[in-house]
């Protein structure tokens, strides 16, 4: 890796991160319309070809007819097609991502622009992407289990979170490749734990958001701030064992999502305000914090509106904005890599003012001026 940073390699990784966002757009849509079980075959290499004749359609349709979802809610072939295409494009988007990874990767490796360390790391991210595809296929297969109406929250929510981890890894690596040497940000080292807390809280809250989506908890508690008149809904831990409530109890997942979201909102907003005050002399980082504040405010309002209206379509927008918000928080954390503490700032300032003269008198003068 060049010391100055490799812009093309960095942009390639950021493009892949953006494509992960595109994948969330597709996956969220598939979930919202309930199309997850539509394609009961998995051909990683040849599956990019859609059914080309009636026989192929009939074959695919017959496979779908084995799912409990079809048996509970039979559809016609035309309705099946409407479920098929979103799922088809989501999978092909994944194939496109694999190409968008492999072709530039081979090119950059050929040009010897990737250090061994970076090569191993991005290959690991690629393998994680492949594992994520297999994980997705497992979710589709659960449709054949008796009584399974949609992918089980126990697995569907982690599928979303693992996608986010890949997303974060791509952004972080891309930004680091572009700027290997962190630009100095004076006196705000104390902000780093806040930014880190923001990213972690966002991840946890988004995990619970995925549970709300996959347990269909949106169908209940269309009120805010109370949940049907209760601060803490009754039956919060009605199921046994206790942990099962987090994957099957609509009241539990929505309650925790709301509570964590409020905490996250406050922490992210506080971080943004402190970032805007502390980094006001660094336009890039300042605008990053401004974006973070705007997105988190929008996110909270979208979440409220989704809960009150009980509208899955709005929940989908809420999901997409969450991913953008997470990206803004990760970028802010990355921008703080070169943050220095205030004491360092003072001593460096004194040194710069008075060269190597470290006499106490000179230092005092430097600090008071």
């Amino acid at each position: 890796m060049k010391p100055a940073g490799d812009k093309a390699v960095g942009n390639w990784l950021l493009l892949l991160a953006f494509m992960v966002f595109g994948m969330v757009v597709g996956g969220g849509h598939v979930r919202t319309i309930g199309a997850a079980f539509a394609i009961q075959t998995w051909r990683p290499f040849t599956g990019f070809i859609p059914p080309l004749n009636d026989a192929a359609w009939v074959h695919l349709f017959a496979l779908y007819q084995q799912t409990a979802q079809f048996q509970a809610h039979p559809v016609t072939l035309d309705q099946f097609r409407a479920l098929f295409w979103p799922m088809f494009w989501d999978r092909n988007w994944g194939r496109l991502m694999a190409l968008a990874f492999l072709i530039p990767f081979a090119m950059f490796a050929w040009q010897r622009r990737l250090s061994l360390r970076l090569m191993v790391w991005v290959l690991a991210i690629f393998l994680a992407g492949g594992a994520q595809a297999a994980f997705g296929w497992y979710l589709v297969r659960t449709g054949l289990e008796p009584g399974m109406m949609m992918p089980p929250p126990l697995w569907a929510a982690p599928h979303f979170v693992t996608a986010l981890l890949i997303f974060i890894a791509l952004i972080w690596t891309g930004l680091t490749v572009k700027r290997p040497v962190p630009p100095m940000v004076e006196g705000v080292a104390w902000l780093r734990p806040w930014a880190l807390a923001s990213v972690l809280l966002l991840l946890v809250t988004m995990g619970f958001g995925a549970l709300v989506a996959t347990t269909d908890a949106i169908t209940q508690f269309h009120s805010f701030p109370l949940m049907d008149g209760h601060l803490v809904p009754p039956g919060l831990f009605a199921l046994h064992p206790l942990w099962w409530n987090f994957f099957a109890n609509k009241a539990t997942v929505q309650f925790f999502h709301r509570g964590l979201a409020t905490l996250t909102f406050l922490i992210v907003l506080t971080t943004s305000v402190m970032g805007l005050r502390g980094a006001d002399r660094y336009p890039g980082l300042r605008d990053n914090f401004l974006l973070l504040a705007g997105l988190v405010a929008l996110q909270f309002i979208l979440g409220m509106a989704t809960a009150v209206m009980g509208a899955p379509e709005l929940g989908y927008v809420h999901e997409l904005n969450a991913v953008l918000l997470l990206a803004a928080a990760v970028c802010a954390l990355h921008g703080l890599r070169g943050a220095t503490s205030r004491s360092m700032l003072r001593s460096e300032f004194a040194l710069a003012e008075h060269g190597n003269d470290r006499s106490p008198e000179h230092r005092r003068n430097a600090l008071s001026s």
Partner: protein
Amino acid sequence: MSEVTLGRRAIDEGVSRRNRKWVAAWLLVSCFMIWVMVGIGGYTRDSGSGLSIMNWDPIIGALPPLSQAAWDKLFALYQTIPQYQLLHQGMDLAGFKTLFWPEYFHRLWGRLIGLEFFVPLVVFIVTRRIEARLIPWLALLFVLGGLQGAIGWFMVASGFDPNSVAVQPWRLSLHFSFAIFLYIAIFWTALTVLQPEPVKLPGLRGLKFWAIAALLCVGATMFAGTFVSGTHAVSIFDPAKNIGMGAPPPGYLSMNMFADKAAVLFNHQALATLTVLVLLATVTVTLRSQAPKPVRDAGLLVGALVILQFILGVTALVSQMFDIGVAHQMDAVLLLTACLLLLHRLRGAVR
């Protein structure tokens, strides 16, 4: 700090920086008390207690009923008004007391503000701690404070009309708007006492226009909000029928803008949305400008409070919880304060 006197903005030689801090602190305490008053008033309104005391005795009314006879007399008076007959038929004395205390406390707090304003004013004048040019202005504000009490009674009196169970919305709006006018006047005076000479800020004149626009937007939205509370317009919110969701109601243009609940709610919502956008733009411009730290901090305060205010407003609507409506009303005053602070700190902005 220079004590030099220059033209119109003359500062009395005798008024030291320290004295000005005392005067400003007193005025800021007055602002805080008005802010609390806005909260008490909101609670009085939303709990429906405003009509429980049928007489207006500015001085001796400070004493609550002290004997059973006094209570019975007040309660008997309340039983004569339409609100009792239409809404609270058969209410007992204990029920009446829950209506009485908020209204009593609201009036008592008003008297306290009067004392808190008048006594230090006299002391500061006698001890010559206050600029001469401020004296008539502050005396006028004191008189206007008394007028606000009278407006309050004028408002309450409208609630005794035949078939009326609440005060007339326009009188409620007048009472609130006048309180806000007094608040703005006192707060601006306090800031100016603290910082008599504007700090010259070259290149920030555009930002000053944003701050003025922000203040006007907040004022307009608050004014529209007074009619939402006066007509209890949130009660028509119904997502299933798409009422109160932000779209103009059918037949909007032919509606009474200050009486029809659907129109009143829509006006407030539309103005609020515009205000949020203008304020967020103002905050963004402030934070991305070369403005000094105090201006930026005022901008940050505006940003945080406007987000809170929007969330509180939506929550008040969807939850129909009146405590949240009161919080929304109190946060509106805080937001207004932040806008005033921003504008005051930008007074010296030039091209």
